[in-house]
């Protein structure tokens, strides 16, 4: 919400709901539950309206009636078949739609992951560890990447018991994984605090001063 463009009523609704949600930090209470239910209800209503407008109206009824795209009746039928799940006698028909979705998604996903993720990431790991400058950290960096990839993969190799050299290498892999978790945790703390700071600024320095007439 941009405080400069908002009325005091809009800001007060937002401020009240923010405080209601934060009140859970003290303990569960009716204000928190009220805000939670409002959020759930609003989200559901918003989604229904949005999907109706962007799918049913814009991508189905308008193209069929105004542009004569009759081929869209086929996906519309598949969509309608999904609702047969509500009737025991005809529920098997919904499997046709599900099969279409699953087959379609699997095909797209497989190519996308292989071509867009697995191959380029593997390619990026096939590097000359001695290329580049020691001073700029390129050589140590390359070696760390290679060691990290190999030892982490070995950590997830479960066909042989992790003993001896395999066990020690897997342990190095675990250290890499823990470092990665640490980085993720640090970044997560930073992200959550950013959100807190934004809300605190809104409540303490935008809404409350305007509410009591200081601003």
């Amino acid at each position, binding site marked *: 919400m941009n405080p400069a463009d908002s009325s005091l009523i809009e800001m007060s609704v937002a401020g009240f709901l923010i405080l209601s949600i934060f009140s859970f930090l003290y303990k569960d209470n009716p204000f928190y539950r009220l805000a939670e239910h409002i959020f759930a209800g609003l989200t559901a209503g918003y989604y229904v309206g949005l999907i109706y407008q962007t799918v049913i109206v814009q991508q189905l009824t308008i193209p069929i009636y105004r542009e004569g795209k009759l081929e869209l009746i086929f996906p519309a039928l598949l969509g309608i078949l999904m609702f047969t799940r509500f009737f025991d006698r005809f529920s098997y028909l919904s499997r046709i739609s599900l099969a279409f979705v699953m087959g379609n998604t699997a095909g797209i996903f497989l190519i*996308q992951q292989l071509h*867009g*993720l697995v191959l380029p*990431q593997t*390619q*990026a790991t096939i590097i000359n560890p001695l290329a580049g400058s020691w001073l700029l950290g390129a050589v140590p960096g390359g070696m760390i990447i290679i060691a990290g990839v190999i030892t982490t993969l070995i950590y997830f190799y479960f066909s042989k018991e992790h003993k001896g050299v395999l066990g020690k290498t897997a342990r190095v892999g675990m250290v890499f994984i823990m470092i990665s978790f640490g980085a993720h945790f640090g*970044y997560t703390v930073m*992200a959550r605090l*950013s959100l807190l700071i934004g809300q605190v600024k809104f409540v303490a320095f935008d809404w409350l001063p305007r509410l009591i007439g200081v601003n």
Partner: protein
Amino acid sequence: MNRYRIAEILTGIDRRIIYLSILLATIIPFLVGFPQPIYVSKESRDLYNWVENIRDGSTILLTFDYYPSTLAEVEPMSRAAIKHCWRKDMKLICMTTVPLGGPSITERVMNDMATNWAVEELGAKKIYGVDYINLGYKPDYKAVLMGMGTSFRDIYPTDFRSVPLDSFPITKNVDKYSDVNFLYIISDNGIVDEWVTIANRQFGIPLGAGVTAVMAPKFYSYLQSQQMVGLLGGMRGAAEYEKLIGSEGMATLFMGPQSLVHLMIIFFILLGNTAYFLGGRKV
């Protein structure tokens, strides 16, 4: 007082005292000021340099792939990106893959920047349909991303306001990824993976991203594989970009409280570990 007693006291601190400390550490820097030096990271500078080297007046596809809950973290990135692009007189084609709030956030930020910031900084308003456009949201992001590689108009026959794309000068010669010069993603979710694997890998459009800090570590691998030209990670990334474009905004302001709260959290982690080691198994 023996060490077990100290450990008991430390582990018995009410969690609400910790919450209150964090709240105070958030508010105090706003009141007394706690400016922090901002050092620009390589990945932020790479993104800035890439955009800087794009020809003036080029067309950029800018996404607003975030929910209202993360506005504080990512909206400063959007604003900084728009400032940078419009200083170079670039055309911005905006869209979102987020249904809940995405289209209205796009509309609000773009209108505000076009009517307020552009007048103050550039001396003239940016015109809808000429300098920027909001395509809005369409469901099924995979189909949207793939379809846009063939034809924007197949996916977005109209803009967010239901006006046909053909009626706008900005989209007159733009109909697929290869017609835009750069993809600038601002996101708080995993859609970045889809943009990389579909738009970049399958259709070859160069891209850079500004993401929430939660997401950032995952996307560093795309920098290594050169599937992404640069990355802004969380509010720190936004503050770095604000520094690079020479326009300090919200992210720079927020770095003060963020740094103080981080120090507070480190203090509590040390306190917790001290209690653990003092108390051993007894506490």
